[in-house]
């Protein structure tokens, strides 16, 4: 190598070259070891993270099961609802976006901001809902401007649609967002925040049947969350179909007949206990809850003195008043024939010790037997007979007919009412029983309290010869393919035994009340079908004397609304071969016959109209019960 004087051939320098080469190799080895660690040892972990990076599980809401009436008329369905939400990870300028969106919706930017903040608890890739249930036009407007609104999504999800609005709202119930405490319970383990669940009544009690099974889509996305392709898909399974025992025409007729009045009405099939109509007034629109009710609307419903949120059929307690007289009459028939056959001369007043009890008819009914007493609702006859029987026998008969205990309707919170007895008064009020209290109880006033459904069960048992049925509301449940999951059977609670004459005599009295001259129930008279029924006028406030009870005279308009008596009417038809029993209460309706009677009549009319016009169809329906 030429001149050999290279400095680089100095051994020290040669060693340095070698050292540098080794150092470089060593550092590269370090890099390779690190790669080994990442790519070989930690491969599983990073590979899983890369899959998680690019895949998303999108859940698809399952439509909730629809609700039908007994003949397959749709009562509750689902409709598409458009929602606006936002993918937070795609938003660069939040303030501007919310401002722009607020103009388009239109909405208050402060509200949008609040919704955004609520969404922070969700995972980043989960869209945050900003507006629920907007109109189609609004959605289209937002879509048109989607270029200025990065990250904003429009979503369609099924929302509950209550086709009958407020009709049977108390029975069907409504939905609300699942709460955090509910989410912690095991039965809500498949639910996600933001899901809607039944909050009351059937929507709540049958939640397990109605809710569908959420579908899932596994999709590949890019870094902006843009959907690239679908990897897997499990379709959503809709909820089961609920067929109620209700009949839509009856329900509509009852609602219509009520008009603006408050109260409750219920109609039962006397041979099965199936509820054909259930009305509680005033009502509310459950659709309001489906879109998230505004708080002032909610407070309005809560504070309304007419209690629109209460299901008065199950939870309203009323004195049964004269409708209770059928129980007294039955008790008399069982006791001794002499008791039932008593003829009393009604002078319009009844004396017991110092107290005077008045008949509603000031001038009196004259000579009155059982039939006339029921027909014209003579109070004096029942005062005397009730006193003869004593409170214990009255209470026993009332309890047989289903009063004083919950009837077993499949919704919680049903009231049991009050059938007083000596023991009851001792336990509740720690006081002895007085004869005067028996007198008052004989006309269904005083301590006696019952719910409209109890009155309906009582009337049905009288009509069908003593069969007390548990009221049914679910007829059958089918899954979305039509397979029957549940089919309800009539549930006989007890058979009440009376001699045939007892049934015939009391029924004749109720028949006469609707169909004969001087009958108090004339307002429910029908030309086509023979109706049997009993009126009732229930005092709201106990007043010192009975003097002001004389509402016949027409001065009733001066009584303030909240002190006006409730109007009651119970009926069954046809009288000779009963099929349907009805109980109606019109709160502060003043007078049973003239106010509650027409509502009962409207329900019966609808029932028999339908029977006539659709005999074939209904015949088939009866077969599968």
């Amino acid at each position: 190598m030429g001149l050999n004087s290279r400095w680089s051939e100095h051994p020290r320098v040669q060693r340095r070259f070698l050292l540098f080469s080794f150092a470089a190799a060593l550092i590269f080895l370090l890099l390779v070891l690190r790669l080994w660690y990442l790519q070989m040892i930690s491969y599983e972990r990073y590979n899983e993270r890369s899959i998680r990076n690019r895949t998303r599980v999108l859940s698809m809401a399952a439509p909730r099961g629809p609700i039908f009436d007994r003949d397959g008329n749709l009562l509750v369905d689902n409709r598409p609802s458009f929602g606006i939400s936002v993918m937070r990870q795609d938003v660069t300028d939040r303030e501007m976006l919310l401002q722009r969106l607020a103009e388009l919706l239109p909405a208050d930017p402060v509200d949008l901001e609040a919704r955004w903040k609520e969404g922070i608890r969700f995972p980043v890739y989960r869209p945050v809902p900003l507006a629920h249930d907007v109109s189609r036009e609004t959605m289209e407007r937002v879509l048109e401007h989607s270029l200025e609104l990065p990250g904003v999504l429009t979503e369609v999800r099924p929302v509950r649609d209550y086709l009958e609005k407020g009709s049977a709202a108390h029975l069907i119930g409504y939905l609300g967002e699942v709460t955090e405490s509910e989410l912690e319970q095991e039965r809500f383990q498949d639910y996600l925040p933001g899901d809607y669940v039944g909050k009351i009544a059937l929507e709540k009690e049958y939640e397990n049947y109605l809710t569908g099974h959420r579908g899932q889509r596994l999709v590949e996305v890019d870094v902006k969350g843009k959907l690239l392709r679908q990897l897997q898909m499990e379709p959503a399974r809709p909820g089961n179909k609920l067929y109620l025992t209700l009949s839509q025409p009856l329900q509509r007729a009852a609602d219509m007949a009520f008009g603006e009045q408050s109260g409750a009405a219920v109609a039962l099939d006397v041979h099965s206990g199936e509820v054909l109509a259930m009305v509680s007034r005033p009502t509310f629109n459950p659709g309001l809850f489906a879109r998230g009710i505004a708080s002032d609307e909610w407070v309005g419903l809560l504070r309304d003195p007419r209690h629109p949120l209460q299901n008065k059929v199950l939870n309203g307690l009323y004195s049964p008043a004269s409708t209770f007289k059928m129980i007294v009459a039955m008790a008399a028939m069982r006791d001794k024939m002499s008791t039932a056959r008593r003829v009393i001369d009604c002078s319009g007043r009844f004396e017991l010790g110092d107290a005077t009890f008045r008949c509603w008819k000031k001038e009196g009914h004259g000579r009155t037997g059982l039939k006339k007493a029921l027909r014209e609702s003579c109070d004096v006859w029942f005062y005397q007979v009730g006193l003869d029987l004593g409170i214990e026998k009255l209470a026993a008969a009332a309890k047989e007919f289903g009063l004083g205990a919950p009837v077993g309707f499949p919704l919680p919170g049903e009231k049991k009412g009050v059938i007083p007895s000596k023991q009851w008064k001792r336990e509740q009020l720690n006081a002895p029983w007085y004869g005067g209290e028996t007198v008052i109880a004989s006309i269904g006033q005083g301590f006696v309290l019952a719910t409209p459904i109890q009155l309906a069960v009582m009337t049905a048992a009288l009509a069908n010869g003593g069969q007390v049925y548990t009221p049914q509301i679910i007829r059958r449940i089918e899954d979305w393919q039509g397979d029957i999951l549940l089919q309800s059977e009539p549930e006989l609670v007890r058979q009440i035994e009376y001699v045939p004459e007892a049934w015939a005599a009391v029924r004749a009295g109720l028949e006469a009340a609707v169909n004969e001259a001087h009958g108090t129930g004339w307002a429910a008279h029908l030309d086509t079908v023979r109706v049997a029924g009993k009126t009732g006028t229930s005092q709201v406030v106990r007043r010192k004397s009975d003097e002001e009870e004389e509402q016949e005279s027409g001065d009733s308009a001066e009584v303030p609304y909240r002190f006006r008596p409730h109007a009651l009417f119970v009926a069954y038809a046809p009288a000779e071969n009963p099929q349907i029993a009805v109980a109606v209460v019109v709160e502060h309706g003043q007078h049973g016959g003239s106010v509650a009677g027409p509502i009962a009549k409207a329900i019966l009319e609808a029932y028999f109209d339908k029977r006539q016009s659709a005999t074939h169809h209904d015949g088939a329906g009866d077969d599968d019960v």
Partner: protein
Amino acid sequence: MFDRRLLTHFDWVLLLTVCLLAGIGIANLYSSTSGWNFIATPIYLKQMVWLCGGVSMALLICCFDYRHLEHFSIHSYLVSIALLLIVLLLGKTTMGATRWIDLGPFNLQPSEVIKIVMIMLLARIFGRTAHPLGYSLAEIWRPALLICLPMLLILKQPDLGTAMMLLFIAASMLVFAGLRRSTLIGLAVIGSGCSVAGWFFLHDYQKARIKTFLNPEADPLGSGYHIIQSKIAVGSGGFSGKGFLSGTQSQLSFLPERHTDFAFSVFAEEWGFAGCSVLLLIYLFLIIWGIYISRRAADRFGMFLALGVTAMIFWHIVVNLGMVIGLLPVVGVPLPLFSYGGTSMVTTMIGVGLLMSVSMRRFKF
């Protein structure tokens, strides 16, 4: 003037190695930017143009006798310092840093120029004075000052990555020139003192990067995002990789900066541990070959020049890979011949030209 021996001694090994690496890099760019339909000229084509330009430049430089550079080195150094000052005063600011001088058709990045010029200057200094026992602390204050001046100017831009590169290159050359043990200890003390003091002068984003490096999961969507996504990309490659054009991290854009600083992550994801090992072997070969050129150089200037250039390439590789696989904090250092970018290509190719020039002139007459 033209010596025919230059042709016979032409370093084909070096040129082929460089072209092989650049070729792999371009294929990798083709993959990492295949989803980009929003730019007219594909990135990999642009990189090809840069490569052709770079190779031509290297060939041009190698024709030129490197020994003349020794005389220019001081002037070049002064000009570079002047350019760095101009950058600070008039430079173009992008993304919070002032690094470029706008020269119309292209931008000049003086911090890149100074890398080469510094290597030339240090080669001149160390080439002229031999200290068989190594430099003492008193003897190196002059070269140390020459290193520190541009470093400070670059830190001011701020560009921590390039300043670090400059330090590493200079330190490598210094160590090779020989240091006494006392000098090493003294420098270590001064260095650690400076780094503690320096923490207070770092910009917030630089501090954030270092903190993020120490614990990237603390802010997975913010400053930790780059490093987490890069590690996921590399790790999910496994042994054999997901296949060319099939890396999900890169193809679906989860990986940021995937055509520049994080190009290697794309390669690691698609080619796996096997591919990475081969690539690293080729890079290592390039480095060893550079040291080999230095060892065979005809004179001390050439030796230091070749060693400095090799150190420059080496440290770029190590720092970039260290950053991509989570061993070092994220400092914007490109992978030579692999990351997209004209500046990096030109700097590297000038270095390669110098290496070839030294290699071709290894024989004395």
